[in-house]
């Protein structure tokens, strides 16, 4: 099964163009969607999740036309939105069971087993009888993951799933996803580059509604390999470097700024060549000058 997005565009009523002619093909496995806040990741994911209309373009999932055969999509969909809430006065078991009914798990025994397994899986078992209103951010997020996994979905869309998780939970969750991703389409949006690098076989970078890059993370890294130069500078110098070089990233190490620049040759004395990682790719596309090359 393949998810094919073609020429998808969407403009909101306030004039913001959320998606500009987006085309992507997504295969089984983990697909990472990288982009800064407001890039259009969530709009794209909501459109795939049947929750938003597109102005033009098409989406197909196998034989299903996602934009019109919504019911068919929903049957095989697991969706975790970026932000969500819960009924505060209800416990996790009740709500998960409730959602399982809505998913169409009509056998009571099966549902019970499923709910229990999901609560175990997301490490919520001890808090299962507590009102959801009293859950911490991380617990709530885990609950969201649990509900997205009801009924073995064929298409899983998770929007910023690791936000608010502690490192151990994050690992556990990513493992879980990759386990599932073996025979499922999993679309994961994030602004954390690490997530994508560790898990995804395929990825896309989008910003301002446009796809800036699509391909595998390894290919992406190869593209900039050997072109990343870094230099540790003084704070006072930062402004002049900004003007003279196309800086793709700035970070502080030991309180001093370290800047990265993309270049075929050493841009200036003091720059050292560094092994490229996905983050450099990301910043390159977001801030860098290679936009045209990629888009072309």
């Amino acid at each position, binding site marked *: 099964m393949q998810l094919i997005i073609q020429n998808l565009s969407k403009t909101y009523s306030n004039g913001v163009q959320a998606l500009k002619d987006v085309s992507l093909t997504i295969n089984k496995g983990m697909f990472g969607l990288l982009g800064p806040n407001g890039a259009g990741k969530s709009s794209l994911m909501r459109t795939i999740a049947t929750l938003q209309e597109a102005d033009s373009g098409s989406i197909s999932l196998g034989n299903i036309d996602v934009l019109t055969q919504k019911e068919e999509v929903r049957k095989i969909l697991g969706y975790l939105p970026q932000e969500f809430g819960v009924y505060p006065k209800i416990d996790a078991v009740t709500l998960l069971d409730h959602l399982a009914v809505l998913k*169409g798990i009509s056998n009571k025994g099966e549902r019970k087993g499923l709910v229990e397994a999901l609560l175990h899986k997301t*490490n919520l*078992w001890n808090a299962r009888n507590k009102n959801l209103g009293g859950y911490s951010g991380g617990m709530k997020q885990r609950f969201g993951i649990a509900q997205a996994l009801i009924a073995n979905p064929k298409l899983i869309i998770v929007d910023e799933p690791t936000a608010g998780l502690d490192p151990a939970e994050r690992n556990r969750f990513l493992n879980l996803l990759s386990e599932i991703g073996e025979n499922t389409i999993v679309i994961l949006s994030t602004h954390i580059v690490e997530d994508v690098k560790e898990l995804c076989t395929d990825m896309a970078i989008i910003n301002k509604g446009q796809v800036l890059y699509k391909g595998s993370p390894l290919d992406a890294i190869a593209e900039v390999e050997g072109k990343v130069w870094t230099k540790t500078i003084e704070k006072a110098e930062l402004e002049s470097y900004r003007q003279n070089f196309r800086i793709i990233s700035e970070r502080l190490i030991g309180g001093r700024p370290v800047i990265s620049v993309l270049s075929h040759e050493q841009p200036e004395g003091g720059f050292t060549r560094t092994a490229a990682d996905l983050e450099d790719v990301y910043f390159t596309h977001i801030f860098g000058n290679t936009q045209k090359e990629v888009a072309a």
Partner: protein
Amino acid sequence: MFKNIFLFELKYRKARAANYIYFAIMFLLCFLAVTTDVVQIGGAVGQVKENAPIVIGQMIAIMGFFMTLISSAIMGVAVLRDFEHNTEAILFSTPIKKFHYLMGRFWGSYVVLLLVAASLPIAFMLGDLWPMREADRLLPFNLATYWQPYFIFVVPNMFFTGAIFFASGALSRKSIVIYTQGILLLVLYIGTSSLLRDLEQKEIAALCDPFGVRAFSFYTQYWTPGERNSLQIPLDGYILYNRLLWMGVGIVILIINHFAFSFNVVRSSVFRPRAVKDEALRIKPEETKIPVAQQFANLSTHIGQLVKLTLFYFKMVFKEIPFIAIVISGILLLFVNAINLNELFGTSSYPTTYTILGLLSGFNLFFLIIAVLYSGELVWKERAVNLNLIIDAMPMPDFIALISKFLGMLLVYIVLIAGLIVAGMLVQISYGYYNFELGIYIGTLYTETLAFLVLYTMLSMFIHVMVNNKFLGFAVAVAFFILVSFFGQIGLEHPLFQFGSGSLGTYSDMNVYGHFVTPFSWFQVYWFAFVVLLFGIAVVFSSRGSEDVISMRWKAGKLRLSKQLVTLIVCAVAVFLSSGFYIYYNTNVVNRYTNKDGREGLQVDYEKTLKKYEFIAQLRITDVNLKVDLYPSKRDYSAEGYFILKNKTNEPISDIHIQENALNYIKTEKLEFNRKFGVKEKFDRFKYTIYQLAEPLQPGDSVQMNFKTSFVTNGFTDNNASTTSVIYNGTFFNNTYLPSLGYNENYEMSDDNDRKEKKLPEKERMMERNDPRGLSQSLFGDDADHVRFEIVLSTDKDQLAIAPGYLQKSWEEKDRKYFQYKMDAPMCNFFSIISARYEVKRDKWNDVNLEIYYHKGHEYNLDKMMEGMKDALNYYTKHFSPYQYRQVRIMEFPRYATFAQSFANTIPFSEGIGFIAKIDDPDKDIDYVYYVTAHEVAHQWWGHQVMEAGVKGNAMLSESMSQYSALMVLKHKFTPEIIERYLKYELDRYLSGRAGERKKEQPLELVEGQGYIHYQKASLIFFALQDYISEDSVNAAFRRFNQTWRFKDAPYPTSADLLKEIRKVTPDSLQYLIKDMFETITLFENKTDSAFYKEKSKNEFEVTVYASAEKLRADSTGIETPIAINDWIDVGVYGKNKAGKDSLLYLKKHKITQKQNQFKILVKAKPRKAGIDPLHKLIDRHSNDNTKGLVAKR
């Protein structure tokens, strides 16, 4: 510091748009209320001007009550907002003092609140200066009129409610508490108003009302129209006490708040945290395998989903704290109201099921609140908690979400109604009544009430879906209700335009739901189809996912137009249209539909066209001979027979004017005379025909008029044209349904304001007392004097049909029952025709047959009625004259009307007033069944033996004399305390009645159909009169009056003729009474200022009373002028008898000639209280200050 916080609060609030919106809303409501008819809050009645201080005061007080909602919004968040915005930690760590913080916030918010509330007086002020207002309905502009009530009511109310909301917000730190607090205040308010209904608790109610509205109406209840136009609202008496009390409560609340409020951010929890059990079993998430569960998408799965969701939403509503608060408040209110069920003179009714249903209907307001609030809440539930995206991505059909929410609400209603039924039965049990009629409970609540809830819920859900904004949705829902109520005023009066129209009408034990069921059902089908249509549209447009724009929702919605949904919508449209057409066919094609304008136009045209015939010489009926066939099951009858008409004038008459009854059901099929005649002129619109005899009828000659009229019910009508007189069980109509002679003045418009609008001249209510035209006709009209009467009635086999007269024979024929009645002497031209399934109770008084025809199950008070008839016959035959008939019959009729009426030896008596009255304690409860019976029997003398002229003062002869007669029967039967209690009610009703007079208050001798005068004032006057001149003297006057006028044809007597007799029996020293009581409106202001006693010896006590007495005379608007006093007034001293009750030690009339008086009285037992006019024989607006407890003085 205080100053900084206070000023900061003002600055902060200045920037909040909400405050301006509140101001604008209140301003608009008030402004529209005085300048248009769109908004109606109180208002002026009759002679009271539209900007009279009391009218403006009432409106400000009422609107001030609604200001409570704004008060909660403004005051509640003053401290709460720091918690909601999580700024408390920052704020509380600064070095401000708690007192400064709280007071700064409170006073800052309070000032803002007062500024918002200033919208009320400003709006009324501008509204009254508005150029479009009618100048002759306004008083000259006076600033105090607007601002005095603001300072008396609004400022303290806002302080009190503000203190509550401020404290509850600060202490609970939860906004939910503020909402529930508002509802509790509402309950307290409604609670005091139902307490107020019982007279003796008016003072308490006046104090209890936190808004002062009750105190205000208590203080001004007896203000006459004249006073209403001239007096400003005072800060005095109970208004002052009330204000001080509740301001004090507000201060106490603020003090409590100060000490209870803590500056700590985290409060120690009231509950100890529950120890968390560590799971013995360690779970390893990694090792968990997620089992495969089968996913279904078939019909049974969807039904399962629907059921599950329905139950889910049902439970969700029941868990809501405001919901619980609303329900508890509603039920509390029911129980409070259950304390005094259906009271009349402070006496309750048996808690029959329909009485309880009336009680339960008090919950409808709460139902409406629940329906509007929670249908909206549920529509928004997922979006409110931000779970919508997850739920919306679930694979369930689109309609399930909305339908399950609707069904959840439906289940809420079903359960609440079941709860109400249980509550109703509990009330019945508490009264010791065990005849539970579950069928009636279910038949009313699960049809009428549930239907109204279903309609409003679906409508409100539709609005929320379409508007797609929660708060705007609520606003639109409320606006819709206002708009619909406004439909009627722009001419869309037809029930097809009135959302949710169609009612089951009044339930009657006799007629059950009667003929109301059919139209009710059709209207419900019609409206249900309408809301289903809306609901179908809502399903299409309901937001699923993150799209909010309507065009996008339509894009998504188009995909939902499945075959089933389209079928549903098409069916709904089809049912809506076809039921609408069917209703229209019934109300407008089969029956005639008129709207208000049409009816008024007809009245106006009738008067303009035919008024000229009002006093032309007409024949008079001398014989009535009828055959009336009643078909109760079809609601039809046909009446055939003849009148003999005689020329009693001195001129020949050839034109005979016939007015048929205006009801559309009634058709005249035949009308002819036994002499040669023709039709001279016919006014079909008015059902008025002028016939002309070929040869004029000479004086003294007669002509026979043969006619046949029929009453035919076809289909059903709208409510305005509906009639409850010819029905399945309990048919009751009178001779006005038959053709009558000449112009009928009753068809004219009577209200002067309406008449003015239609450019008709003002109208006198009655003819002058010396008008010869009036003197020549009796109170029953100018169609006849006395008539000979004979009738054959037939009806369904299981019913009895009754008319005046003696039963000659009865027989059965072709499955119908026949009854022949005949009067052996002429009677007045006023007769009833009655048919129902009756039980009969019979008894005898001397040789008079006493019969009560009653509905099975209504046996409660039959003995009291029998006794009432016997005692009344006894007294009246002994003191007035012999009884002219050989029978008295009482027959029950359904409670569509609540009165009893006296026809010749025949007294129809409503199911609603006497048959289910519950007289528990004969020492305390006024036995009004006995009393009403005695009153109606008295009419056999006053009205039937002596018919009075149809001129001003006429009711003093029939009604007032019957009041007196019944009161005397009562006096000899019950204790003086009961009589005193009864008179106190009469005094209250008289004083309230004159306060609401629309035209002019008349003295008793010139009363013009004013019930508060000819019933209530007359009771007081005649009771006092017999006290002054003795019962025997009054009876003697009545007896002589009876002897002079008994059974006479025209000319008829007037009140002057009775007063002539009363004068004869009144001693010279008391002749002034006649002027005070009958010829003028005279009031007293009697008060005991102080009183004490000295113990002279063991059984000799000297009581000293300082009392003031004033005598006042009122004009027709109620403006009073003091007049010199020279009257005999009771002075009394009370002690205690052995039973511990008050008993009179001394009661004697003293001649009083000045305002300030001192009385020294010697009594032989220890006195307790003393005073002037202690028994309230004189009309006194402050009757509670007549006596005072005594203090001992050495």
